[in-house]
């Protein structure tokens, strides 16, 4: 067993037993479910809307070359500098280079999962630049020096008291238990950072091919400030983010907000079409768009799972996943967590090393049902299981299945097995719950249902006669 899998199992086990964590997450998500269902009900037809969104994304992803070229030629025509990056390293190097060239000392960053994916902040900090996360949740986890807990709500796992202690320690603010005051402390601190920053970094939720714009969704306004005040703006965008037309946003913006944050539409949806244009009073002098592949073309080549590139990172599948809700976001130890993370990570970081994530699922299908762009998530988990076994199947597993086949093909053997099992379970108590227990994996947290004295087959035969 590889080490990431061991660590995963260990943390997952610990978190599942953490009742405080569980009630906390249930509580936070409870409000989300109510709001989401209410917003969904406002749609005249949510299922049709999902189908349409899936079809539009299908069109975009399956003509990716055409739309990307259209997007790039449009946005370049407005004075934007576009950089194509095959790997995360290339993207980091480029952005560090831009920062160096312009003698950038401080950077404000609005939330970008692509940035997390390629460890952009670390790369910039190593080159001696200060990088401040401006999304409140991201800022909090940055101060705590930990990874985001959720792709939409990064600090969902923390209580106001923990945040108050953190601010007290790191910012020297007076302790308070009011979320409002805590937000204002962050607001004041970050205001200064915005005004002083030389560079703003953002991601993008969509890249519009028709008009050459990026669409950026935030609630706090950090996306707008980070792209308005500093003299340079860099947007780091996965190549799969394209949408064919501007009108498509009329469908995607409300769907993203509904599925992601139980809102009718998010507070700020900003469309940026270039650096400051002539006769405009403000905005960055330079705008760089970095288009990131980093494994996406590999995923594209897998026709069966190509639809994972439709993902709009709403986080909806995380919120409904029974596994996520029990083990929490940090157990995954990945950039993208929850169902979509479990599907993507083996593709991005290695099928066999990360295959444990494909098994971290009850295959209930809640994720697939929640996904606004209809990604077939739970079947992809199954496909990843199959693929992982195909490329390297452990000998003991083969042995078990061979044994199983023999047993099932020989009625006599099977019946003998059942009888032996019934006899054997009498002695189970001696080893139950210890490492000697052959079914320890089950009994450590559950009761094993007893084998009946008479099998169903016996019962049926008697009933017939």
């Amino acid at each position: 067993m590889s080490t990431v899998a061991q660590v995963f199992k260990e943390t997952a086990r610990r978190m599942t037993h953490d009742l405080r964590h569980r009630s906390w997450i249930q509580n936070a998500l409870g409000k989300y479910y109510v709001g989401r269902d209410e917003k969904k009900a406002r749609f005249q037809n949510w299922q049709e809307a999902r189908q349409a969104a899936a079809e539009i994304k299908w069109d975009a992803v399956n003509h990716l070359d055409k739309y990307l070229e259209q997007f790039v030629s449009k946005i370049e025509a407005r004075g934007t500098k576009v950089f194509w990056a095959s790997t995360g390293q290339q993207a980091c190097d480029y952005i560090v280079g831009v920062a160096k060239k312009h003698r950038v000392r401080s950077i404000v960053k609005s939330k970008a999962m692509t940035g997390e994916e390629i460890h952009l902040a670390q790369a910039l900090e190593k080159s001696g630049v200060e990088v401040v996360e401006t999304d409140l949740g991201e800022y909090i986890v940055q101060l705590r020096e930990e990874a985001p807990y959720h792709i939409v709500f990064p600090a969902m796992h923390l209580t106001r008291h923990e945040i108050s202690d953190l601010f007290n320690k790191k910012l020297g603010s007076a302790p308070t238990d009011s979320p409002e005051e805590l937000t204002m402390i962050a607001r004041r601190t970050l205001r200064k950072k915005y005004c002083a920053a030389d560079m703003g970094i953002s991601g993008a939720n969509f890249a519009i091919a028709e008009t050459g714009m990026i669409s950026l969704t935030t609630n706090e306004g950090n996306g707008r400030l980070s792209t308005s005040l500093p003299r340079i703006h860099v947007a780091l965008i996965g190549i799969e983010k394209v949408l064919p037309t501007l009108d498509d946003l009329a469908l995607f913006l409300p769907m993203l907000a509904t599925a992601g944050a139980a809102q009718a539409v998010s507070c700020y949806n900003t469309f940026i079409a270039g650096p400051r244009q002539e006769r405009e009073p403000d905005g960055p002098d330079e705008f760089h768009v970095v288009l990131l592949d980093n494994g996406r073309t590999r995923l594209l080549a897998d026709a069966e799972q190509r639809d994972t590139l439709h993902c709009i990172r709403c986080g909806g599948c995380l919120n409904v996943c029974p596994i996520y809700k029990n083990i929490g976001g940090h157990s995954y130890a990945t950039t993208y967590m929850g169902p979509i993370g479990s599907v993507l990570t083996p593709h991005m970081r290695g099928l066999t090393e990360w295959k444990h994530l494909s098994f971290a699922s009850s295959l209930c299908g809640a994720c697939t049902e929640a996904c606004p762009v209809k990604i077939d998530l739970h079947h992809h988990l199954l496909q990843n299981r199959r693929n992982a076994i195909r490329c390297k199947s452990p000998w003991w597993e083969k042995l078990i299945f061979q044994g199983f086949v023999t047993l099932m093909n020989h009625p006599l053997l099977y019946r003998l097995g059942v009888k032996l099992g019934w006899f054997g379970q009498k002695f189970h108590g001696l080893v139950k719950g210890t490492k000697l227990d052959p079914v320890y994996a089950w009994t450590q947290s559950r009761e094993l249902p007893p084998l009946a004295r008479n099998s169903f087959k016996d019962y049926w035969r008697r009933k017939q006669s």
Partner: protein
Amino acid sequence: MSEREQILGRIREALRVAAPKPGLLSGPGQRVPPHEKRPTDFRPWLPVVGDSFEERAALFAKNSAELKTDFQLVANRDELQTKLLALAHAEGWKKIATHAGELTNYAFAALGLPVVQTGGRYKLDELESSDAGITECDALVAQTGSVVVTTRSAGGRALSVLPPHHVVLARRDQLLRDLPAAFTALKQRYGSSYPSMMCLITGPSRTGDIERILVLGAHGPKKLTIFCM
């Protein structure tokens, strides 16, 4: 070969195998027959909006209440002036920021307060220390309770997001039905040359990052007031 050519090459190579069309999932409510053509009209599925001005205004008001936007219909300029003065007084405005425009010019004349104009280059700390940013807009969207602003209609990028109170002055004919109408309007107005920033503002800045409890004024304005004449 450039990185661009390499990435595009990989994409074309990958796309040689066709992917299954969406919509074929099983499960409750999952199976919706695929549309014959790629959908372009989303109205039949999006939230309903009435046709008349009254219906639109009522929906906008309802959405505003939910979003904690202060939305007020005003009959004429005199009423606008009274309301603006009352607002300035209640909040103790000492300095406002605005841009040149028919309605904004009128408003700042009516207020008679020191003003920061963002028409040309301005000083950032001057704008930051203003008590309110007063702007015009491109449209109001009844369906979502949103305001559409652009660098051209609303005095640049920062004016509508930096000061703690954003006041929008709109005309009645700017109140559009829904998001599709808003995008059509943007296309008609700017299609040949878009402003570098356009934004759909829906309520005052907000966050739920601490215990999922709603707090207004995370980074942007704590208050959003819309006067519709």
